[in-house]
């Protein structure tokens, strides 16, 4: 579609000098912040990670910085097939040992710092760490859903994570954050004060929910409405594009050729056929052509060439093979003859597949002829129809008499596996 550009197409025209900072999707341990930064600054991602880990212990700067990057920097959209600044083989997915090494390193540093005077206190650090893990879990979920959206809009859907896992992870994150908050309160003020404080918080949250509830509800509904509207608009655009490419063009052509009725008829008929197959076309199994489909295609071709209306009725169908291809070719020849010589504007074709028996009738109500006196140079009938059917193990019968139209009957036994 000409105006169906994906919103991500601009990346393809992005020059290497205007590289943007993204969070990495393939070189990441948590959210890809360090990997993305390393790529952007052309540094080793390990160095960046260690720097962040050290910064964590400078008043928690590393933690805050990491969270800020996570929130602000967008994740790299799916870049499969895009030219990358560095070769893909240099990238690697962080394996489990990397993660463990990093955890052990962080743990060691924590214990080390605990011995020094910089330690803020058990009562503060541990709850904060738990809260950080909970938050990371929840944010991680958001990243995944974003990636899925990209993948869905770009090409085949990613392997979907079951909704149950997503919900469990989300709940886990929320519980971790809640636990850390309670823990922090208890360790600071004692159980009773903490309970009182928590009750106050709950009351406040409940009140807030009551007050802003309707507004949230509307927000969600509006969002859904908007999405539905967008889908509808997209469908409409697609329909408009199709009508523009086909129907409007044909109507313009018809207006230009108003003085040539045959041409107008041909155009109208071709357009009708096209629109019909677009609206309720028979779904073709992948790649395999069928007898009915091939006869319809042949009829369309002959219609187009000879400005005759050919109506095809098919009962049953079968995949096309060598024998049936011969049937189609003979039927086509019969249609051409009817269109050329019968002098009528309507030809009726009937295709029937019943078990292994295939029958095709091509009939017109035109001038007809006497088969006994037909000239030898009318090779169409004898060679292309009767001869071809006989060569392929079938038979053709031509019934015609002057003034009573012509009917060609083709019979073939199908090879069934």
């Amino acid at each position, binding site marked *: 579609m000409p105006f169906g550009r994906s919103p991500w197409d601009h990346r393809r025209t992005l020059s290497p000098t205007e590289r943007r900072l993204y969070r990495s999707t393939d070189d990441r341990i948590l959210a890809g912040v360090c990997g993305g930064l390393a790529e952007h600054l052309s540094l080793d991602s390990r160095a960046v990670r260690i720097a962040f880990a050290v910064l964590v212990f400078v008043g928690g700067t590393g933690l805050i910085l990491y969270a800020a990057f996570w929130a602000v920097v967008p994740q790299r959209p799916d870049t499969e097939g895009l030219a990358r600044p560095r070769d893909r083989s240099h990238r690697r997915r962080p394996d489990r040992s990397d993660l463990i090494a990093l955890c052990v390193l962080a743990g060691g540093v924590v214990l080390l710092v605990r011995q020094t005077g910089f330690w803020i206190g058990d009562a503060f650090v541990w709850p904060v760490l738990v809260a950080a893990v909970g938050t990371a879990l929840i944010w991680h979920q958001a990243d995944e859903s974003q990636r899925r959206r990209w993948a869905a809009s770009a090409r085949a859907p990613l392997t979907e994570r079951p909704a149950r896992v997503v919900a469990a992870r989300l709940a886990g994150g929320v519980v971790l954050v809640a636990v850390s908050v309670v823990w922090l309160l208890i360790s600071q003020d004692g159980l009773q004060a903490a309970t009182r404080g928590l009750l106050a918080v709950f009351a406040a949250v409940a009140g807030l929910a009551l007050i802003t509830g309707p507004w949230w509800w509307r927000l969600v509904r509006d969002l859904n409405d908007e999405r539905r509207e967008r889908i509808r608009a997209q469908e409409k655009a697609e329909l408009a594009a199709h009508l523009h490419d086909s129907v409007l063009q044909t109507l313009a052509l018809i207006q230009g050729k108003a003085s040539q009725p045959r041409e107008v008829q041909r155009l109208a008929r071709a357009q009708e056929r096209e629109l019909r197959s677009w609206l*309720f076309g028979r779904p073709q*199994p992948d790649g395999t052509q*069928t007898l009915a489909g091939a006869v319809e295609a042949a009829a369309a071709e002959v219609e187009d060439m000879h400005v005759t209306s050919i*109506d095809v*009725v098919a*009962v049953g*169908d079968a995949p096309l093979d060598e024998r049936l291809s011969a049937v189609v070719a003979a039927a086509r020849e019969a249609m051409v003859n009817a269109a050329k010589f019968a002098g009528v504007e309507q030809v*009726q074709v009937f295709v*029937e597949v019943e078990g292994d028996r295939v029958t095709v009738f091509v*009939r017109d109500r035109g001038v007809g002829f006497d088969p006994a006196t037909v000239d030898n140079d009318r090779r169409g009938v004898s060679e292309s129809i009767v001869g071809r059917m006989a060569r392929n193990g079938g038979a053709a019968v031509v019934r015609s008499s002057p003034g009573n139209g012509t009917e060609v009957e083709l019979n073939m036994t199908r090879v069934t596996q």
Partner: protein
Amino acid sequence: MTADAPRPRVFIVDDHQLFRSGVRAELGDGVDVVGDADEVGAAVELITERRPDVVLVDVHMPDGGGRAVIESVAAVDPDIRFLAISVSDAAEDVISVIRAGARGYVTKTISGPELADAIRRVAEGDAVFSPRLAGFVLDAFAGAEAPVVDPELDQLTNREREVLRLIARGYAYKEIARQLEISVKTVETHVSAVLRKLQLSSRHELTRWAADRRLT
């Protein structure tokens, strides 16, 4: 047809003004057009009031289409006959108006004289099958998948099949009669029998089969 034969009284239901006036012009003097309507509600009201012989009804219309008109009128006045007309030949649509009670189906590309002839036939109580409808019906009753509950209704006789095949090949009733060496009246009886089976058969496949025509 002879000049003194009574002209069938026809009512046209279609939501396209262009088509209604077009049909009036095409039909000419052969029939007596007693009115038209462009929506279901008004159509039902006028039809039950004017009681035409035949209602020419468009399959596709807002508020339920031709099917709704046929069902509403039949509930009040079962004697009025319907001929369905449509631009589409999606099998489900065609079968569903026939099953609602239409006595025939033609496409909008039909010529004026042919349409007048079809209307006359329906007015006389016969069924009108286009070649395509005959093809649909052969397909519908061909499958061995659907269980045969009532052989009287769920299967076609060999003779009925023969008649349908000839219709699908483009034969007129008179030509069919000559080919099979039977009377035109007998051909009409066969077609009416097929129509009755199409309307009453409980083969649940009937409306569904057409979408996924089997590949043998």
